[in-house]
């Protein structure tokens, strides 16, 4: 049900510049909808990034990360074709994992 992430990873020297765009409402629990009802809290709590199966980033988030979250990181010792995997889990227990490969700099 959750929409796929967009992951782009380009190699700069031996560092992979990784940009991830997730689709998520990231509701703070403070916002009110058109009817004036409070929209319940619903946000991504944990994000993990792996590089060839090894965890390189473990993030914990609050509701104050913007809607449709962006995450940028740099992975050392990367090569073209290396496998990246990104997983998030939200407050409802929904998860999504997407994969990408490191590409050569264009």
């Amino acid at each position, binding site marked *: 049900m959750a929409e796929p992430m967009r992951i782009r990873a380009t190699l700069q020297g031996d*560092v992979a510049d990784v940009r991830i765009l997730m689709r998520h409402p990231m509701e*703070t629990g*403070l*916002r*009110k909808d058109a009817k004036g009802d409070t929209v319940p809290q619903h946000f991504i*709590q*944990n994000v993990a*990034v792996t*590089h060839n199966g*090894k*965890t*390189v*980033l*473990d*993030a*914990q*988030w*609050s*509701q*104050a*990360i*913007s*809607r449709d*979250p*962006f*995450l*940028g*990181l*740099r*992975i*050392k*010792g990367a090569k073209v074709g290396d496998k990246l995997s990104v997983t998030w*889990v939200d*407050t*409802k*227990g929904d*998860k999504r994992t997407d994969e990408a490969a490191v590409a050569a700099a264009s």
Partner: protein
Amino acid sequence: MDRMRRRFLNAGGSMSVLALSSFLGLFESRQGWAADWNKAGFESKAMSEAVKALGAGNPVESRDIVIAAPDIAENGAVVPVAVTSKIANTQQISIISEKNPRPLLATFDVSSGSEGYISTRIKMGETSNVWAVVKADGKFYSAKKEVKVTVGGCG
């Protein structure tokens, strides 16, 4: 968790199906898989509490941490923030917005294989200092940058 579950299963008849499902439900709900979620920190209402919940007693201000964020953010709902830590053995980067209702925004464990760099977009309620708290070799360092917010983004 498995051992707990075994104990419950062994308890057999004393456990009603209803109780069992609600017990399992607990794990499925809010905290879910998020065993690693700093509840105390994220629910802190003051920056000092949040820093304490990170285990950082009194972080030392460091010039080796660079925060890239706009001087003026027109829309507080989307404020781009990037933190670079040039401190050797950077293990963790946390982002704090001092005047947000819940100041601690995110914690990134970057220990293995990723550089001391993180970039994201945050919500800010009002003009405030944005702090980066960095853990390196078990010690804590910090840096701050003021971001002026035209329209708050918490509601």
